[in-house]
C-alpha cells in the first residue's frame, strides 16, 4: 500500500507541476501581448514626434533614464512606469543624416526575468517639417 500511495503522490506532484507551469505561461503570454501593444504604440508615436523622450512622455506619461544613446524605463505588469519593475523597456536609438533630414531608428526591447520578452525595431524619417515612419 505504501508503494501505491507513493506512486499516486508522484503522479500528483507531476500534475501540480503541469498546473503551475500553465499558470506561469499564461502570465508570460499576458506580458508578451501587452508588450506587443506597447511597442506598436511607441512606433506610432515615434513616427510622429521623431524623439524618444517625447515618445516616452506620450506613451508612458513619464521620462526615461538615459545612458549614452540607450534609454531605459521600468514598467509594472500593466505596462505603466513603476520603480518595482516587472518588465524593463530598453530603447536603443540610432540616427543617420539623410539628404534633407534625419533617419532615426529605434530598437525597443522588453526584458522580463533577464530574458527578452519581445523586441521591435522601427524607424522614422524626420525632415524639417514632419515625420514618416517605416516599421
Amino acid at each position, binding site marked *: 500500500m505504501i508503494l501505491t500511495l507513493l506512486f499516486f*503522490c508522484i503522479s*500528483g506532484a507531476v500534475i501540480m507541476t503541469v498546473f503551475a507551469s*500553465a*499558470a506561469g505561461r499564461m502570465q508570460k503570454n499576458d506580458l508578451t*501581448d501587452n508588450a506587443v*501593444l506597447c511597442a506598436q504604440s511607441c512606433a*506610432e508615436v515615434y*513616427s510622429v514626434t521623431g524623439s524618444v523622450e517625447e515618445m516616452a512622455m*506620450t506613451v508612458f506619461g513619464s521620462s526615461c533614464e538615459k545612458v549614452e544613446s540607450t534609454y531605459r524605463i521600468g514598467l509594472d505588469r500593466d505596462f505603466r512606469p513603476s520603480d518595482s519593475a516587472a518588465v524593463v523597456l530598453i530603447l536603443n536609438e540610432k540616427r543617420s543624416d539623410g539628404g534633407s533630414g534625419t533617419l532615426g531608428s529605434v530598437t525597443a526591447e522588453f526584458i522580463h526575468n533577464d530574458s527578452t520578452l519581445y523586441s521591435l525595431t522601427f524607424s522614422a524619417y524626420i525632415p524639417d517639417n514632419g515625420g514618416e*515612419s517605416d516599421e
Partner: protein
Amino acid sequence: MKKYRSKNLSDVLGTAAGMILFLLFTVCMLVMIAVGAATYSRINDGFQREFTSSAAVRYLSNKMRSAESCTIIENGNGAALKNGSIVCIIYCGDDGLYEKTVSATAAVTAEGGDRIFALDRLNITEDKGLLHISVTVGEDSSDAIIRGG
C-alpha cells in the same frame, strides 16, 4: 494470553496507522484537485478577459488605420470611420462594442449596431495628431496609440 493480546493490539495499531495514512493521502489529493480546479478557472477567466480587451484594441486600431478619416463621436465613446461613400460607426453600448455601416449621407448615430465584442468601457481621445484608444473589460484594460488619419 498476554502474547495473544499484544499481537492483537499490534495488528489493530498497524491497521489504524495504515488507515490514517490513507486518509491523509486522500485529504491531500482532494486539496490538490481543488487547487488545480481553481488554477484552471483562473487561467480560463484571465485568458478570456485579456484576449477580449487586446483583440478589441487591435480591431479598433486596424479599422482606424484603414479608414480615410476618423471622427470621434459620443465624447470618446465611439468613432465614425469614413471610407469613400461608406461610414463605419463603432461605439461602446450596453456591455459591448457595437458596429454598424451606413451611407456617408446618413446621420451618424451610436445605435442600432451589431455587437462584436463584450466590453465595459471604451475611450478614444485625440492629441497632437495621435489617437489614444483605451478599452476596459472587467479588471483588465488595454491601451494603444495610433496616428490619426
